[in-house]
């Protein structure tokens, strides 16, 4: 079974909710989720973010829908780390 371990996303969001609320909402999605959020650009009404999420098995559709619920737009997936768990276990 292939698990997504880490993604780096290019996200555009309004100023509200702020980055603390957004990163907390993403981290709340899984017990072992780890979030790093960097503000890349600040405009009059929006912020461009680099959002890095890591965990044992990321639920990407849930991350995407949470971002959408908070008014953000996912522009691109810049990096992905995936792992075949059965192979790693056999090693």
């Amino acid at each position, binding site marked *: 079974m292939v698990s997504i371990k880490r993604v780096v996303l290019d996200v*555009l969001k*309004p100023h509200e*909710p702020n980055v603390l609320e957004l990163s907390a909402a993403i981290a*709340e999605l899984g017990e072992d989720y780890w979030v790093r959020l960097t503000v890349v650009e600040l405009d009059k*009404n929006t912020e461009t973010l680099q959002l890095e999420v890591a965990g044992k098995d990321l639920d990407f559709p849930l991350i995407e829908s949470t971002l*959408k*619920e*908070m*008014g953000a737009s996912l522009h691109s997936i810049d990096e992905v780390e995936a792992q075949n768990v059965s192979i790693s276990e056999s090693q």
Partner: protein
Amino acid sequence: MSLFLQAKFLFGLSNSGEIMRRYFVVNGFDGALTMLGLIVGFLFTAPDDLTVVINVCLAAAIALGMSGLSSAYVSESAERQHALSSLEDAMVRDLQDSAHGKAARWTPFLVALVNGLAPLLISLLILSPLWFSNTGVCLPLPALICAIIIAMLLIFLLGVFLGNVAGISWLRSGIETLLLAAATATLIYLFTGP
């Protein structure tokens, strides 16, 4: 996210706490001063039947409540939709299904409720001695005087509330609003007094 956290999040998103607080004071003050004016006016005309006073004041209170409810809903809906459209332009996406869309739909209801209920409830409190007196409850002072005292007390408390919000002396702020009420009563006396 729990319901409470969701509500808190939406409140923060729409900045509605501050707007509701402002509307509560503005329209609450309107309600209290209108009732004070009516009751002071009735005090000088000394009506025989207290039911007339109650009906006139109650009608004014309901009108103030309905006016607050409808005007706040219409204006807040328009403002929220405008703000949402601007944000949608900036985000280049539809935000109706996001927290921003929910806040734009719910905030006008909540703001309208506060704007309508503030003058209505404050007016009902001011009118309470008139009802008590009309139902035969014995009051220490004439019912109209009791209503004026309650109106003054509520106006003072609104000033205290404003003082706390502004972080200035609550006593000074309370006395300032009380002086405004006294000035209103004096003006009414000058124009309608014996």
